[in-house]
């Protein structure tokens, strides 16, 4: 029993954190939202070079065949740094749904060359970034089709460009467990992004509370703020083990229960972090000019992406045999 990251995983997180910390990701996210994908595509390639896109691709297809824990480590960093793009779709979902249909695609996924997006109604009705994807898919029940995208729908998170899709060519009818595995993996990656975003929001709020002065002292000296931020720390600290617990049980009989538990807890913790960070920042955090809002709106969107909290609570109860 060792319920902690190993050195390799910590190093992986650190190298992603360093890479993304050195890039101006918020600027890339802003540009992405305006339809200028150049900076975001550059990040996409650099992440692929670090192996992020090959995490879920088997080694014999040019990937890393990594564990779900590694995936969680990577997606926490993507969330912390606000990286835009259909990452959940290309990195986590596509390798699962394309494995039997188009094995040749896996190598191109791993290298970051192939950008895939998909809609999977009812919980994921729109395809993210269909305008830049090389392959747009629709997974409806077990039916996997290529799809054509309709007109852009704006998300509360400006970096999430959503497209309704229409089925085009039928590719395959996937077995139920493959569909379930794809959904659980997506929900888990999304939870990790939420946790990363929540950690970043807390860090930003703490930093601001140390420097912003009112009534002659740093606002972080005020107990009301301290207590609100401490509660954010507690929420994130206890969402994290659920996330890693779910990574360990992904694909097992408890997969649905545990990924849903992780999604509920990560969404709650990140949302609390967002609300508190805004309150700590005050009006400046409510402006479009300040970057804080990019994380706040990202969290709001991810709370309901890949299954709302209500959907996931229902799944937990169903799995516990008490629905």
């Amino acid at each position, binding site marked *: *029993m060792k*319920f902690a990251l190993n050195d390799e995983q910590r190093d992986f997180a650190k190298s992603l954190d360093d890479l993304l910390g050195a890039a101006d990701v918020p600027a890339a996210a802003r540009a992405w939202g305006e339809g200028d994908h150049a900076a975001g595509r550059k990040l996409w390639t650099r992440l692929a070079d670090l192996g992020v896109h090959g995490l879920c691709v088997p080694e014999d297809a040019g990937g890393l065949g990594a564990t779900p824990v590694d995936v969680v480590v990577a997606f926490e960093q993507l969330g912390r740094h606000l990286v835009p793009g259909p990452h959940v779709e290309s990195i986590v979902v596509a390798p699962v749904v394309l494995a039997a249909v188009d094995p040749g695609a896996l190598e191109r996924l791993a290298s970051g060359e192939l950008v895939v997006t998909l809609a999977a109604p009812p919980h994921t009705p729109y395809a993210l970034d269909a305008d830049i994807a090389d392959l747009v898919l629709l997974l409806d029940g077990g039916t996997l089709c290529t799809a054509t995208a309709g007109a852009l729908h704006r998300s509360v998170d400006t970096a999430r460009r959503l497209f309704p899709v229409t089925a085009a060519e039928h590719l395959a009818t996937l077995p139920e467990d493959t569909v379930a595995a794809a959904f659980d993996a997506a929900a888990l990656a999304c939870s990790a992004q939420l946790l990363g975003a929540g950690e970043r929001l807390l860090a930003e709020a703490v930093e601001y509370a140390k420097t912003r002065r009112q009534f002659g002292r740093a606002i972080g*000296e005020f107990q009301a703020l301290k207590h609100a931020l*401490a509660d954010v720390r507690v929420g994130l*600290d*206890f969402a994290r*083990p659920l996330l890693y617990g779910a*990574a360990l049980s992904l694909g097992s009989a408890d997969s649905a229960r545990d990924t849903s538990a992780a999604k*509920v807890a990560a969404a709650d913790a990140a949302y609390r972090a967002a609300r508190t960070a805004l309150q700590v920042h005050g009006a400046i955090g409510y402006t479009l000019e300040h970057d804080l809002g990019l994380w706040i709106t990202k969290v709001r969107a991810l709370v309901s992406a890949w299954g709302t909290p209500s959907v996931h609570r229902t799944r937990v*109860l169903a799995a516990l045999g008490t629905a």
Partner: protein
Amino acid sequence: MNLDFTEGELAFRDEAREWLREHVPAGPMPPLDTAEGFAARREWEATLAAARWSVVAWPEKYHGRDASMVEWVLFEEEYYRSGAPVRAAQNGISLLAPIIFEHGTPEQQDRYLPAMADGTEIWAQAWSEPEAGSDLASIRSTATRDEARGGWLLNGQKTWSSRAAFADRAFGLFRSDPTAERHRGLTYFLFPLDAEGLSIRPIAQLDGHPGFAELFFDDVFVPDADVLGAPGDGWRVAMSTAGNERGLSLRSPGRFCAAADRLLALWRERGAGHPHLRDRVVDAWLAAQAYRLYTWGTVTRLAAGGDVGAHGSVNKLFWSQLDVGLHEVALDLLGPESELRDEPWLDGYLFSLSGPIYAGTNEIQRNIVAERLLGLPKGGRGR
């Protein structure tokens, strides 16, 4: 990263499960803080000790099994899953014993640990005073030197002394050097509750039972042999117990997991009539599960030589709120019957209400988290 246990750990768990299945008394015991409840638990703890299940992590010479921390957590999960009662000896075992192991003389270890393990000597804690609750460093009860008799004379008053109404002995801090600053000049004493000059006034808690007591000291003599650690070093000695109390030792996850399982059973029985409580039931189960997994993370860190430190405050904030939330939703499921005094969920609920107050209030814990973990500036208290 894994949650896999060794064959040895699984065998240990299975042995515990089997023994508990055969020996846990059927039906609920009288409440802990009653004379009958205390007597029943002394008997139960003697039974546990005879089979060496009362203090599994202790050395064999003191009735233990030298169990690892992993085995200890597994045992606690089994203990509560089996329906076994909360231990009367828990203050001694989880707060005092680690200090005796660390700071006690060999004579003190031999004198006190076996009697603690088998329930023949049950310990109460005597920390708080009327003017010193969460602000423990401001205690005023004194210890003055009695050279002639080779010991100390204790004077003053302690309050909110858990278990003191029925326990045999107590441990606490007294100011032995009135000229030293707040955190210095304190000494850690062990003393019998029937000592001459010591009077006890039980205090009924919200559940009606005397879980607390006030202790009044009038020249109570304590020999040098019952000073724990060096005189004047009591704060440092005591702080290692405070860390234990907030952290892992007093609140093993088994207890909350067992309660969450009971909550799910209650939901199966009554949930159909209360669909609006669904989310809160899920969240209570989730929280217990999160606590269990968090604990395995803590065990991993401790096993690698880390310490709990200020994370103990994160832990205490979480379990105390989880415990209240879990019982609140159970009471809502029970509806109008939830106010009936013989409803076991009500006892659990009343007990849970003390969680955010004792072992340092949750407000104190939030300050610790904010200042020590988040690095926010000190000062500004009470503003």
